[in-house]
């Protein structure tokens, strides 16, 4: 099952992931960083294993300017 992984501490809150895939991401109003919707927290690394994952996420991985997002 494909996974979306977010290294959240690296996030600079630029919002590009949310712009590209608004269903997968939310911008936190608390600390201004992106939240991975449905992501499970593993010591600060958020992982989403999703059957509904779409190939479009690759664009999100490549667009994150600080490489905080990986698709595995």
């Amino acid at each position: 099952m494909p996974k979306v992984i977010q290294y959240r501490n690296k996030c600079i809150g630029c919002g590009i992931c949310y712009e590209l895939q608004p269903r997968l991401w939310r911008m936190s109003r608390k600390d201004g960083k992106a939240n991975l919707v449905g992501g499970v927290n593993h010591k600060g690394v958020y992982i989403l294993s999703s059957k509904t994952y779409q190939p479009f996420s690759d664009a999100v991985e490549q667009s994150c300017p600080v490489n905080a997002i990986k698709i595995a």
Partner: protein
Amino acid sequence: MATSKKVEVLAPAGSFESLAAAIQAGADAIYFGAEQLNMRARSSTAFSTHDLEEIVTRCHAAGVKAYITLNTILYDHDMQLMRKIMDAARKQGVDAAIVSDHAALNYGKSIGMPLHISTQANISNIEAVEFFAAYADVMVLARELSVKQVAKITRQIKRKRITGPSGNLVRIEVFAHGALCMAISGKCYLSLHSHYASANRGACVQNCRRQYLVTDKEDGHEYEIDNEYIMSAKDLCTIDMLDEIIQADVSVLKIEGRGRAADYVYTVTKCYREAVQAIFSKQFTPEKITTWKQQLATVYNRGFWEGYYLGRKLGEWSTTSGSVATDRKVYLGQGNRYFPKINIAEFQLETGKLNVGDKIMIISKHQGIQTETIHELRVNGHTAKESVKGDAVSFYCTNKISKGDKLYKIIETEYA
């Protein structure tokens, strides 16, 4: 001299090492970012709001002012974080926040936080100064103004008696040294277009610093343009015209470089501090300028020019992708301990070699920078001429070192 008031040398502090180096070198004030809402969001050594107390305590103990940068573009989702940073800065006694977004301006004013207007606001005329005077006591002018234009603005501030919230005349800050952006005062979208990495969120990938080919669309031929990095401006260096800048009644001289190493911060701050003192004591001589320029060339630089201050329309472009510094530092290892009675420091060599005759630099989070030449070396307790990776080496050091301090060897580069 048009002014006798103190000119502030404002140094960058992107890490605790740089902070220590700036204080050691005689900075009057330092600026730093915390969390992601500053123009060096990418930095791995970024501070958090938890570091504010230590930063302020260390600065104020040394009589140095501390300014926090909060000058990115702000989105709706950033508001709470912006307020949190501003509140923490106010609470911890940070001397001012450097802002450009109107939301930060508005909030800072509402809580009584002293504000400086960032160069990102592109202040280029007296009416903009009048507008921002309702919010800020210090304004950084756009980097593209000539020194004449700067002087005209400061003259009008005095003539019109434009005062900031403190009731004092608005003070003008300019960039004195460091990297220049190819775009107007940092308002660049190149990196955003090519890599989704917004320079205005501190994520610039610096693709202007690369070489480019021009393609003839008709026949597909590719051309290199004179082997130059056509978008990469050389670095700003104003040390030889600093008297003119001070004559223009500039109050604060900003040194760029929160992404630079501590030795860079130390060398540049020290040179500019000395230059300012020399100007006021009428000892600003060509010989001294030559010495400062030589020292400035030892640390990271892309070659120097005087920026737009003399009214030049076109920039000077760098000839390499990286630095043309005359010195390079090579990491060797970390500090173990210090024997204060005999001034001997012991380091663990993690990589490379250290020999008698080598010039070394130690960078410390607490003490800043010190350089030494190795005259005598003890390796694993015995006198030796050479040492290799894995050895515990000890040698004379004038000042204290701490565990974890970083040891580097200084090597002359091909540009020396």
